[in-house]
């Protein structure tokens, strides 16, 4: 599992076709809502919109674009739930910003980096989400480290597969 630093000269910045930038996040949100119809535990362990936020943020390597992508995807995800808007929004805004910041410093094309980054950001995302849900919204959520770590690893593995597929949609800026 190799994690390597990247100099500023080596940084590859990518952009996406506008259709891809809209369709991929929408597809992720759609699948996140639709797959539990057949696999009820899917939403327990996987967060496809989060993976998309991490991928776009790391590929674009722009902190502003990263946080905007995270905010928009998070708010759309929020709007499918009966809870107040902003819970996923804030969590994904921070993740988008963090992933793009990290993308500038790390070689995020390698499998090892992707696994570690996705695992770490999943945990960060969940910590922020749970904090907001419990402290601000007053939901009675139960935190389970074992479940969150299993979910983090599961997302990281799925993320590596999806990132490889989505790499084909990238265009050099």
């Amino acid at each position, binding site marked *: 599992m190799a994690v390597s630093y990247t100099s500023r000269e080596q940084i590859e910045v990518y952009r996406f076709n506008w259709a891809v930038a809209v369709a991929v996040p929408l597809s992720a949100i759609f699948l*996140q809502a639709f797959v539990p119809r057949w696999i009820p535990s899917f939403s327990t362990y996987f967060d496809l919109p989060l993976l998309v936020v991490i991928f776009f943020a790391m590929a674009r390597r722009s902190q*502003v674009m990263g946080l905007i992508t995270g905010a928009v995807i998070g*708010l759309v995800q929020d*709007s499918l739930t009966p809870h107040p808007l902003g*819970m996923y929004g804030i969590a994904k*805004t921070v993740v988008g910003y963090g992933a793009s910041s990290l993308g500038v410093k790390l070689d995020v094309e390698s499998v090892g980096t992707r696994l570690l980054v996705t695992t770490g950001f999943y945990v960060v995302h969940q910590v922020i989400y749970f904090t907001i849900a419990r402290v601000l*919204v007053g*939901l*009675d959520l139960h935190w389970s480290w074992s479940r969150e770590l299993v979910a983090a690893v599961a997302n990281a593995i799925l993320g590596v597969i999806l990132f490889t597929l989505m790499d084909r949609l990238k265009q050099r800026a």
Partner: protein
Amino acid sequence: MGRYRNVSILAAAVFIQLIGLAYQIRKQPSKDSQESSRLIRVWTISAITPFEKIIVRLQTGTANLWHNYVYLRGVRQENRDLKEQLEQLQLEQVRLQQDATQARRLQALLGFKEQFIDQTVAAQVIGSSGSEQSRTVYLDKGSDAGIRQGMPVISAHGIVGKVILVQPTVSQVLLISDQTSGVGTILEQSRLQGVLKGRTSGELVLDKVMSEEDVKAGERVLTSGGDQIFPKGLPVGTIGEVKRGGEFLEVHVKPAASLNHLEEVLVITKKQEREPETARTSSIRASDILAQRLPSVPDKPAESAPGTQASGTVEGGIAKPVTAAPPAAQGTVKPNLPPTSGTQAITHTGVSATTPPISKPAQPKAANPGLGAAGTTSSGNGQGLSRPTPGGANSQKPATTTPAPPQIQTGDTPQ
């Protein structure tokens, strides 16, 4: 300043969302929290649900094609089995109708009002919220089909949830397993009432049950009607694990409806609150069913003068003898059972009980049905046939009795 530009934008983005969140939370107690963000929700749902509908319909269409045209193997055997099952259920239904009639009669006596499911809309589950922390599903029907916010949603097995957001063609249902949900329930045997709540994990738990209460695993949980959403008596689930310790019990409930694999549901669009009906006219009676199934003897020619009342009647819930019956007399039943000293009546419980020969019992007063005749046989509406009582046949004596030939009477109850 340029150095902190991106961090400032991040702080601003988070701050704006926090303000928005606080605004929605503040509005929550007085008004529905979803109202303040309705537009965004409408856009999202409008963008997502059409695809879900298309896929679900394609899936349903394919499944129907398979079942209707391809998968015909074993259909005959299944049909035979189902017919047998139907006959069993018909008999069971008659028995239950009798019990229900008696319950309604008692409720009417006490002036109870009951909520009845008057109208439902069938809908298909097309998606979920996609979040572990909120257990909601989307239905493919909305306000265009008559669905409104707050309506209860049930499945064939039990209650499912309530409608929390409605759009013209889509509606969102909060499942009973969501932690913000609460359902008024009652235990079937012990009649213990409680509020059923969901947990983050999706489990259902009966809230605030004192530790001294006797709650047994396996007992059925029904809706109590106390939440003003679900009509009383709908199945909720069964008691699973009961954990003791502390002031309250931890009573886990297994949902009757499969909340994780919902496909088709019914939205109760109209409930009616009315006093229980005691007069039911179209019920099937055990004797009708048995008359169809047992061998019969040919009809006897009419002996009495033409014009005599031919059809058999039941008054006060007790068979009235037929004085003359032309062969094609409506409602007359061929005697299927051997003659006895009295009328061999088939009760609605599906049990044969010998009753004394009765011609016409005293009609109970309408305002006080069920209490008019001795022996508790009369219902006043033709529903309550003889019930065996501990005192035996002779204990069931209505006010007036005259000898009657052994004959089973059927036909619709006179009003």
